[in-house]
Every structure is written in C-alpha cells, then in structure tokens.
C-alpha cells in the first residue's frame, strides 16, 4: 500500500486518497522519499564471529611416557634402546644423526615408517643447522626430566618387509652420574629392565685427554657394574659400548683398544651380546660423519634382541606383546 504525507489520509489502509486524487496525488510518498532505515552498526562480535571450531589434540608434544610406550610395544615387534653416558658424551648427536640420515634416505636397509617424536628429533637437530644461526657446534643437551620417556621411531625392512617399532630412551648425563653414585637412583631408570639394547657412550675426546680419561672409563665401568648387579640388565641385553667423537680420538686409538680388551674380559659373559663401535656423529674437523658405521649400529638395534629366542620371535602371539612391559615390572 502507498503511504501519504498527510496524517489523516487512509490511503495506507484501504487505498482511498483523502483528496480524491488517486495515484496522481502529490502527497503520496515515493520510494525515494521513504527515509532509509539505517541498521545499527554491527558489533565487533557480529563482524568477527568465527565459526565454531573444536580442536582436538594430536600426539607429539612431549616424548612418550611409559604408558604410551606400552601402547607401541603392543603394536608388534618393538625394540627398546637405552642410551646412557656422561654429560656431553654424544647421545643427542647420535640420535640427531639418525634423524638426519633418514631425511636423506633409508638407513642400512630400513625405511623410515613413522615417528611420534618428530618435533623432538627436529629440535635436537636445530642448533646444528645453518638456519639456526648458531656458531660452532651446539647440541641441545638431554634433560633429566625425560629419563623415563621415549622417543618413538618406526622402520620397515626394505628386504623382509617387516615393521619394527623402536623406543629410544635417552638418559641424561646428570642422571647417569647419579645412577653411578647410588643404587636407588639407578633403579629409578625404569626403561633399563625392558631394554633390548643398552648403549653406553664414551666421549672419544675424553679418552684422548689424560686428565679426563680415567674418570670417564671408571664411571662407565661402575655404571655397568650397577645395572648388572641390580639385575636391570643381563643376558637378555645387547650391550653396545660406543666411543663417540672419533675425530677427537685420533692419535689415541690405543686407549680405546685397551678399554675394549678390558670390557671384553669383564662383561662378555654377563650380557646377551657385547659390541664395540667407534663413531663420529658430528665431527668437528673437516671429516664427514661415520654414516655407514652408525647405520650398522642402528640395524643391530632394529634386528636383534636377546629377550626372545631368535627362532621363536615371529611366532610370539600378539596377546603376549601386550605384556611386554609388564613382564619386567614396568
């Protein structure tokens, strides 16, 4: 219905013009005359109201705790590798090197099949990258906060096609010294009881320095004595003695040879297997990392366990995998 400027005109109600002029009446209000109703400005909330979003957490914020590690152990063949050694002996460099190697290709016949710890591997590597802007060689040190945590890595054999989960337990150097000092602290290292592999690292630079050499050798020897006498390791354990920083050891190889002979005599019969490795994960001279040797060490971790008879490994029923950790009271 049209509108009229005259208040008494009934045109808006029944279409009759008060002055009888019909559609030509000058009092009729045209569309353009209708005052524009201006909506109030929208509030900030109306303008930027985001659609309702519900976020769900994804894994990988922190290393796996024991309960999470158990879940991976239930998935199938799972190797637990514990790395221990004095502060700055090269544990983090070794783990970071593995991450770097996988970024360049398969390692020793194993494809990278996944990891729930990628942010941690990347963080380990960060300070050794050009992008970080760090000068000289810097590595993030292991934190005792994660002594009973695990980094996860899954690999698949390019030959056999079998998948293996690896749980890597990086024991901080400060914790290592405490474990040497007291049995109580040593027993707090829960992963050792489940470890298929115990990797004890010795700083090659310390072996080359007479003022450091004897202390480092003794600390490592005492640590192994502790874990063996407490039953945390034994015949079910593959023990690896890794001399790191090979580039710093040059000229002092005889010290490493002597250490190796001594450990052979003292430890061979007490563990499932004893292996010696000399590596350079991040050499400081112009040499390159000992990639092949590190690859062999990794393949050993992925392929070997003394916790089960080798022949029986494929026939272990899935129900038994679920008890992997419980079996050792973890």
């Amino acid at each position, binding site marked *: 219905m049209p509108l009229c400027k005259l208040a008494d005109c009934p045109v808006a109600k029944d279409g009759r013009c008060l002055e009888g002029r019909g559609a030509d009446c000058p009092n009729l209000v045209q569309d353009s005359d209708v005052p524009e109703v201006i909506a109030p400005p929208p509030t900030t909330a109306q303008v930027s109201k985001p659609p309702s979003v519900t976020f769900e957490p994804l894994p990988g914020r922190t290393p796996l705790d024991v309960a999470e590690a158990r879940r991976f152990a239930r998935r199938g063949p799972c190797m637990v590798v514990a790395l221990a050694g004095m502060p700055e002996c090269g544990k983090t460099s070794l783990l970071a090197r593995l991450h770097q190697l996988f970024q360049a290709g398969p390692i020793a016949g194993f494809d*990278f099949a996944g990891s729930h710890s990628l942010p941690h591997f990347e963080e380990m590597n960060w300070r050794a990258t050009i992008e970080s802007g760090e000068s000289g060689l810097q590595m993030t040190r292991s934190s005792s906060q994660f002594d009973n945590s695990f980094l996860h890595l899954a690999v698949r054999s390019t030959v056999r096609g079998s998948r293996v989960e690896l749980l890597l337990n990086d024991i901080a150097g400060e914790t290592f010294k405490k474990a040497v000092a007291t049995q109580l602290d040593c027993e707090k290292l829960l992963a050792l009881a489940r470890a298929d592999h115990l990797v004890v690292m010795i700083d090659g630079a310390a072996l080359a320095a007479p003022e450091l050499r004897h202390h480092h050798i003794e600390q490592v020897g005492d640590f192994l004595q502790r874990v063996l006498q407490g039953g945390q390791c034994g015949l079910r354990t593959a023990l690896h003695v890794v001399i790191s920083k090979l580039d710093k050891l040059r000229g002092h190889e005889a010290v490493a040879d002597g250490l190796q002979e001594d450990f052979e005599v003292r430890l061979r019969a007490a563990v499932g297997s004893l292996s010696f490795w000399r590596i350079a994960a991040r050499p*400081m001279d112009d040499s390159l990392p000992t990639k092949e040797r590190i690859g062999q060490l990794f393949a050993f971790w992925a392929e070997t366990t003394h916790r089960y008879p080798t022949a029986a490994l494929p026939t272990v029923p899935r129900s038994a995998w679920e008890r992997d950790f419980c079996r050792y009271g973890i």
Partner: protein
Amino acid sequence: MASNPHHQSVEVNASRVLVIGLPETGKSSFIQALDEVLKHPATPNDLCGAGLAHDRSYIQIDKSDFLAGKKLNRTRRPLEDTSVELWFEHPPSGLRGRLHLPDRKGEMFRDQWVTRQWDKAYRENLSGIAGALVFVRADEKSRNDERLGVLANETFQSGGAPRPWDRKDASAQVQLVDVLQFIAEHGEIPHPLRVAVLISAWDTVGQEGDLRPREPVRFLEREWALLAQYLRANPEFFSARIFGVSAYGGPPDQLGPLLEQAPHQRVRFVDGTETTRDLTRPLRWLLQLD
C-alpha cells in the same frame, strides 16, 4: 542411456579429494590449471568438464591472475570458505560427477604441526575422501641445511643472533610427514588411501647444471627422501603415485613468450618419463577411473 548406471546426473556422483600442502606449494595454481584443462581436454579420453558448478566464486577470485600468468595473490582468498567444486565427465565410461577440492590454506597444515591439534570438523571430513593430492615444490628444499665438514667448526655468519628453536622452522618434509601421520592414525580414512604426490614447479627441474633426477619418482626418492620412505613403508595406509607438474608451464610472472599460449596449452604434467598436458591423470587414478 537410462539403463547404463554410469550415465547418471552430475549431481549424483560427488567425490571429495583432500588437498594437502604447506604454504605456497602450488595447490591453488594446480586447481586453476585443472579447471582450464577440464574445459579443454587434450584427448577425447581425458577427463573433461561437464558444465559449470553452481558456485564458482572461490575459483573466480584468482582466475584473471592465473590466466595472465601472474603469481596468485593469497591474501585475496577467504580464510574459511575454500570450497572448490568442478563438474567432470569421464568419456570412456560416461561417468559424470562433481569433484570437491577444498583449497585449504597451507598454514592450516603447518598449524597442525606447530600446535599439535586439529579441527574436529576437518578430522570428521576425512572419513569420506576419495584420495589426497599432496603438494611439494621442486624448487624448495625439503630439509634444513646441516653444518658439516669445515662448516661444523666455523663461526657461521648468519647476519644476526642465533634463532631459538621454533617448530615452524622445522624441515618441510618432516612437517608434511607428520601431517600425513595424523591423517593415517587419527582420521578415519579408507585404507589404503590413494595419494598422488604432485611435485610442483617442475619446470625448474632439468635445467642446465641441474643434477636432480628428471623422473618424479626418483626425484622424490632423492630430494624428499623421508616422505618417499614414509609412503612406501606404510602400504596399509597409503597407495602412492608421484607426478611432476608445472601449472603455469614456467615461472609465474616470467612466462614471456609462453604467454602466447593458452593456459591449458602451456601446462606440463610429468608421469614417469612421459610429459603430457593431462592434469586430470592423478584425479582419474584417485577416483579409480583408470
């Protein structure tokens, strides 16, 4: 016609393909090029257009820039509504359908890596996808450079103070693998999910002095090794094929004489040792039309 089950209305067959990639990896350019190729199929058997979708407003935003050979302006695109719908027909089978390619911003995938969380709605949408297009760039490095050899012991002049660790600075292939892990392990995707890895900016490969492999499969194996291994080592989750693609046919903003050619003519697609203009090949595979 009515008795042939393939001859159904375009409205009936709807397929959703997940488009994955970190920021600026060529996702939007590919979609633009695909739209052009659907309109101008190279051979009668190629996937072709079956009309225009009702709403093409998203794809229209960048259309003029793409056709002019210009780099796309990401800031013009909306943050939320990134839906792209293309209508297609598969001449050999007579199948017609709608293809949904949500062009999600690469920042969304990067945020999943950084914040370790994802949108519940995104996760729920994964259950219905037909496959995934995963984008990486041929002209960007897949990992951070490590200081090795003489660099290891030198003071490196980066032009500033050392930068503290920030997850967003992680290697590109590591971020991408984690995004795929989230999908594989926390999304209810069909198993195995068909994944077409598209190596964009393929026109940068094979230039003088470039020693990188010229076959996409071998290129990924060498340059994006972690991603290649991950896809190969998880056959229960993924079935992957690798392609090279140059959506513009050359570097955007520098096409020069190539601009004389229509966009669908200058596009290049590499499958093994074969180079074609048929950008629909990965989609035919994802939709199991081949």
